[in-house]
């Protein structure tokens, strides 16, 4: 049986223009890495958006795997700007193999 360890997976929905701030916060929290995936469209309190790539108002998902404490540190760091910058943050526990990497 392989061994797995528990890590936090954090996914942050952010404006493309804010992505640099988020990845900077991840680096600052001492987390080893992050991955960005594209987003097509969505709806929230501010209404629907779509086809925004041309206007530079599109969004991306930024996901990162981190140990519990670093994940909480990241969440603390981002909490004050979540509303102001329109970020959406969810996190949950996942099992990873080779946990020493994260």
């Amino acid at each position, binding site marked *: 049986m392989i061994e797995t360890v528990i890590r936090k997976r954090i996914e942050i929905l952010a*404006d*493309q*223009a*804010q992505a640099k701030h988020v990845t900077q916060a991840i680096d600052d929290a001492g987390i080893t890495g992050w991955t960005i995936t594209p987003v097509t469209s969505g709806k929230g309190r*501010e*209404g*629907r*958006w*779509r*086809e925004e*790539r*041309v*206007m*530079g*108002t*599109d969004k991306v998902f930024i996901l990162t795997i981190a140990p519990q404490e670093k994940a909480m540190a990241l969440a603390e760091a981002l909490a004050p700007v979540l509303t*102001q*910058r*329109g970020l959406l943050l969810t996190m949950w526990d996942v099992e990873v193999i080779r946990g020493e990497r994260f």
Partner: protein
Amino acid sequence: MDAMGIQALTSPVVLFFVLGLLAAFARSDLAIPEAIAKGMSLYLMAAIGLKGGIEVAESGLDGTVLAALAAGIGAGFIMPLYAYWILKGFGKLDRINAGAVAAHYGSISVVTFVTAIEIFELQGNPPEGYMVAVMATMESPAILAGLLLARGAGSNEDQSTKELLHEVLFNASVVLLLGAFAIGWIAGPEGFSDVEPFFGAMFKGVLCIFLLDMGLIAARRIMDSRALTWRLVAIAIALPLVNGVIGTALGASIGLDTGSAAALGVLCASASYIAVPAAMRMALPEADPGVYLTMSLSITFPFNVLINIGLIGALAVMMTGNGAAVP
């Protein structure tokens, strides 16, 4: 807006824009992939930049160029001021949104400019090549002005001024427009001949498809919109009217030819919907794109393309006292 205006309205460029509007209002699922639309907008900027640079390489520069650049930059700083005042007062926007919208109206729309050039050329009044450089330099001043207006709110202290200045000076459109302009200037007409089929001959066709997409996006955005009030709609029509007259008069007063004066009018009348929204997302994330993008893209852009460019062209003929006869 008689014969000239009608001629403009039957040009394929404008007709494709209308097709986009109609298709979206009829809730058709017609859509251009985002990567293609982005690619077309880069192509249009590279091509217009090149073309301007080549014309300048051919014709050389005279004293009016500096005057035109100064007029453009000045207008870019001043237009946001009264726009902000109107948007806060009559438009009832808060400080941040008023500043963001003001930045859009002080800056320019490359595609409005390009469409206007096509129409003015049809009418026999092509603007000078250096107007492309004027356009490129007018992208940024209004971003600065708008941010200064919004900043009083103090919400962006964490956004370093250095980062902001960088964005303003090196944003993608400015770099591509000025870079291609420089390349056209260096390469000159001979260097250009090899790339003419791509950057020259194809230009108008690409513009057609791009405007089809803009029509689709503008109409869909207004249908999804929640934040637009009649006051904001009124401003989104009044500002381009006023700014168009001011810009054209400014152009005529500093001695530009008919086409160039009209082009300056269109630059003042146009509102950014590519470069400035991207900058606002970074520097003013609290501002609502449902307000600024819907105003500039869904109201002002169609108004300019369908009506205001024609008005400005006619005004410039009157103000400069010449220009090609109406065919």
